[in-house]
């Protein structure tokens, strides 16, 4: 069930210059949340920001009734969110979208490019709880942009690439040597810039591995009413907010 709640910011974690985490607590109680689902955040006190901002749900702690948003400052809306601090409230519509479908068995590869790792942490936690073996491949521009590697390490092996070679293998995430043995995996879950996800989709296709990607089209309502966030699928134009954000690559009309 979707809800709209005023969440209380219980913790703010600065990761680096442009990334931070908002941990929010629900007084009314959290609804059921699946990994890969997202939220629409109201940005207040800034007349340049009119629409809510869609953010993936980074992690959930049902014991503490809290959830985390992993935010990269990319524009006016996220910059305004970066000014918030502990004790502030955040008006949030959530959980939205379909989320990642969890397999019952098999080996899983998570691929996160830059802040594309945002929806993958909760997924890694859930997969680990289910006893599914997983490997996480994280890519970033530089070592300083690598965040939360140790959190992913709790749940399985972590491989790293950086564009400048300051950590892990040097080069794009899609050129990591792990791809040579990608056919060992049964399923790939990927989130990151669309150009990167398209290369991952092509690699998955080549290696014949089932692959899911999480899209982040610009959107207004987040609940399937405005029809603004569509992507072209084999079934026609579909809303990323309700039919996605997670799609099997075979559903998408990507030229790969």
């Amino acid at each position, binding site marked *: 069930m979707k809800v*709209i709640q005023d969440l209380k910011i219980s913790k703010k974690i600065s990761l680096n210059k442009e990334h931070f985490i908002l941990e929010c607590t629900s007084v009314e109680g959290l609804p059921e949340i699946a990994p890969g689902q997202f939220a629409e955040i109201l940005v207040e006190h800034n007349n340049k920001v009119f629409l809510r901002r869609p953010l993936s749900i980074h992690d959930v702690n049902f014991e503490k009734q809290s959830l985390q948003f992993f935010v990269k400052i990319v524009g006016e809306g996220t910059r305004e969110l970066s000014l918030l601090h502990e004790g502030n409230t955040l008006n949030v519509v959530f959980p939205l979208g379909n989320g990642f479908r969890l397999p019952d068995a098999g080996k899983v590869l998570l691929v996160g490019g830059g802040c594309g790792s945002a929806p993958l942490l909760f997924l890694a936690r859930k997969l680990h709880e289910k006893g599914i073996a997983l490997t996480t491949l994280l890519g970033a521009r530089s070592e300083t942009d690598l965040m939360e590697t140790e959190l992913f390490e709790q749940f399985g092996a972590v491989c790293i690439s950086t564009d400048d070679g300051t950590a892990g293998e040097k080069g794009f995430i899609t050129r990591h040597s792990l791809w040579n043995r990608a056919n060992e995996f049964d399923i790939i879950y990927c989130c990151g810039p669309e150009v990167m996800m398209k290369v991952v989709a092509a690699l998955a296709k080549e290696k014949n591995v089932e692959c899911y990607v999480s899209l982040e089209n610009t959107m207004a*309502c987040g*609940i399937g*009413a405005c029809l603004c966030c*569509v992507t*072209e699928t084999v079934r026609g134009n579909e809303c990323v907010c309700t039919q996605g954000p997670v799609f099997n690559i075979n559903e998408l009309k990507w030229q790969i």
Partner: protein
Amino acid sequence: MADLKVRIGELELQNPVMTASGTFGYGTEFEDFIDINRLGAIIVKGTTLEPRQGNPYPRMAETPSGMLNAVGLQNKGVAYFIEHIYPAISQYKTSVIVNVNGSTIEEYVALTEKLNDLDHIPAIELNISCPNVKMGGMAFGTQCKAAADVTRAVRKAWNRTLIVKLSPNVTSITDIAKSVEAEGADAVSLINTLMGMAIDSETRRPVLSTVTGGLSGPAVKPVALRMVWQVSNAVKIPVIGLGGIMNAADAIEFLLAGATAIQVGTANFIDPRISVQILDGISDYLTRHKLASVKELIGGLKI
């Protein structure tokens, strides 16, 4: 509690708060957040005779105090609506109004005839003002003769309440309103979106795939308010006001300007509960101002 009922043609609404077409899906999208049945009416997503894929992504641009859209009437067509959507929404106690679109007069009429078989559609809203389709749409709403022709043809095919939704992208909206009134429209709703565009200075490209789109949100409210005031002074049929209504005060301004009912549109994207909150706000206003009926507000502007 004050009387909230208003009348649009043959249709008596339990209150003047409607939701605007294209901003409220089929109502079902909002069921987790509000009791749909509290609303005066819902106007469902623009429907066409045949399925439409709409325009390519990107279809939306955020603008100061508003947004541009270029959805282009994406919908699964009237046959799908009748088979898969109508059975569920016909159970609503609120009035369900269908927004009717076409590229030719024949298409408008054929679609209207199909809706005739549905008992729980007490009114249609004839959309002659969509700025985001190449054929038809706004072409019918920007010339008096074309507006009159399509209204006359649909009027013959529909004997329940007929609302005509007007475009603000015209020299004189009152002339268009008078033309459709003369052909038997029971009410007019205004305004549809204002045509606009957005450019990305870094890429030097338009933000929307269609270059231009329709502007909505609080940015258009003063224009909408002015047009509602002018039209309600020019016609005898009820005017339904919309354009940037974000709260109860905005809604009351439209009633004072002469609207008999209002539609909440883009605000539904910001807060899915806003339509019923606006309804509650209107009730509070009537109590606070010791008014027995919302009708006392309609056209109550003091000049």
